[in-house]
């Protein structure tokens, strides 16, 4: 990467000196892959400097204070006012506390008195480059974070609005009695409204899981969790749904297998995988849950005899709000967050989640969580 460095000085000797020192100079840091070099341009007056700054993207300016026209400080003031994405270093032989304070107030990175040795210049350039680079990286990360958050929120509001719109639509049709006089004519709409309300409640519960996860360590409580016991507790909860579809759940597991984890988080993972295995199963289908220790990891497998997925559908599976839409999934409601939450949780424990699937035959989810991990990755705090 080449940074554009503008030297503003009315003494040609300084400009050529800087050029000589920095021509073959490069900077690199252990935390970045690239090496930074400099393209040097110069201006003899503050007015020229402003014109160059306005017209080309300058990264760093070395600014003499004593100039023929306007002062270096005024150029700095201009840069500060217009909020250019650049770093400024003042150089001057007339160093006084007054100018130094002023320069710092206007955002100058540092202040180098003239005359300076090549090594002093290099050290100053190295420090200002690092500062500029970190500033840019942080801003980029913040922008990206804002972007993801914005996308998440706009999808979320769409997902919350859509059941409301649907139910409102149904109610209006009933209000106008568009499909007949008797309440029986509207049974499908009523059932569907209840289904959409259930879905909305599910979405809100999933959001609570997500908030809990993102709010971080404060509420996490790591204790040895017995995986089989945890799975059984979850199965008790989804039994009614399984009975309705006459889906049988088989559990095979190592009873003594425990991992250090937050009990509730492990249950969320089990709940998402097992309830999907029931929901997307056929009537009279089966779900096989296997929990075992393989090498130094806990392996959880959830296999169903359900509708399965195509490779294209599989690609989308773990993304936020993605739901696979086809004739086979049309009656099934879900928030589209379950698996993305499960994945995020498993990853917090250094684990992985994978899926194998065949359309109309079933899917098999496999979660692997290492048992000997030194630490649990804590979600970042705000």
């Amino acid at each position, binding site marked *: 990467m080449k940074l554009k460095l503008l030297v503003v000085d009315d003494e040609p000797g300084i400009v050529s000196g800087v050029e000589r020192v920095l021509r073959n100079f490069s900077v690199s840091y252990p935390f970045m892959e690239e090496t930074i070099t400099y393209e040097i341009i110069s201006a003899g007056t503050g007015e020229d400097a402003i014109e160059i700054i306005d017209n080309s993207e300058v990264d760093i300016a070395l600014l003499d204070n004593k100039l023929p026209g306007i002062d270096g400080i005024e150029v700095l003031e201009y840069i500060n006012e217009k909020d250019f994405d650049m770093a400024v270093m003042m150089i001057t032989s007339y160093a006084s506390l007054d100018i130094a304070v002023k320069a710092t107030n206007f955002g100058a990175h540092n202040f180098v008195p003239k005359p300076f040795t090549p090594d002093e210049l290099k050290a100053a350039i190295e420090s200002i480059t690092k500062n500029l680079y970190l500033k840019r990286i942080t801003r980029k990360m913040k922008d990206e974070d804002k972007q993801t958050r914005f996308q998440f929120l706009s999808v979320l509001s769409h997902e919350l609005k859509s059941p409301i719109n*649907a139910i409102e*639509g*149904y109610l*209006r*049709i009933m209000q*106008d009695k*568009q*499909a*007949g006089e008797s309440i029986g*004519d*509207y049974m*499908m*709409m009523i059932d*569907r409204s209840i289904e*959409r309300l259930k879905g909305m409640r599910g979405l809100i519960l999933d959001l609570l899981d997500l908030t809990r996860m993102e709010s971080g360590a404060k509420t996490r409580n790591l204790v040895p969790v017995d995986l089989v016991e945890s799975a059984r507790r979850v199965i008790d909860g989804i039994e009614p749904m399984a009975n309705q579809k006459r889906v049988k759940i088989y559990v095979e597991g190592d009873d003594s297998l425990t991992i250090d984890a937050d009990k509730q988080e492990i249950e969320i993972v089990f709940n998402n995988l097992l309830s999907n295995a029931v929901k997307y199963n056929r009537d009279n289908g089966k779900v096989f849950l296997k929990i075992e220790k393989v090498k130094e990891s806990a392996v959880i497998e959830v296999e169903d005899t359900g509708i399965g997925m195509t490779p294209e559908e599989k690609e989308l599976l773990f993304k936020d709000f993605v739901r696979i*839409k*086809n*004739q086979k999934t*049309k*009656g099934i409601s879900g928030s589209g967050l379950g698996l993305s939450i499960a994945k995020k949780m498993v990853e917090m424990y250094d684990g992985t989640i994978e899926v194998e699937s065949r359309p109309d035959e079933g899917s098999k989810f496999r979660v692997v969580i290492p048992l000997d991990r030194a630490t649990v990755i804590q979600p970042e705090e705000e």
Partner: protein
Amino acid sequence: MKTAKKILIVDDDMDVIITLQTILKSKNYEVVTAMNKGEALEKLRAEKPDLAILDVMMTTHFEGFELAQEMLSSDEFKNIPFLIQSSIDILTTTKASVQEMARQYRKDPNFKDLRVLLVKNIKDGTAGIDYLDEEGKTHWFNVRGFIRKPVDANKILPEIEKHI
């Protein structure tokens, strides 16, 4: 007794399907449904419906339009009338051919940002769709008619009766 007319609803929104289905069944139509283009083609073949109602945006942006064009160019399906259901505004005209109107709208700077033009001649009932696909290619095809979303029985039923 005459057999009930069969209507195929193609929409990826379950709630639109249920609403339409309830309304149509109350008028003794037989209803079959599909949620994407692939399922729709299967149902067209297997059920031989008397009419199809097509949503536009399903898995892909213009899936309903692609389905309509496939129907029009297939010997098997070209005689099955279809209606396009969407919430896009319909441009109306009384003169010229609808395709000519669409061409004129395309040249009009006020409409240059529109990806989709639905044009209907309110005098003779002819209608058509002009749209720019993802690659920027323009397509034109004739349709029997449009149905506006949200679903409203008082508008849908008369439109359907015109065609079957």
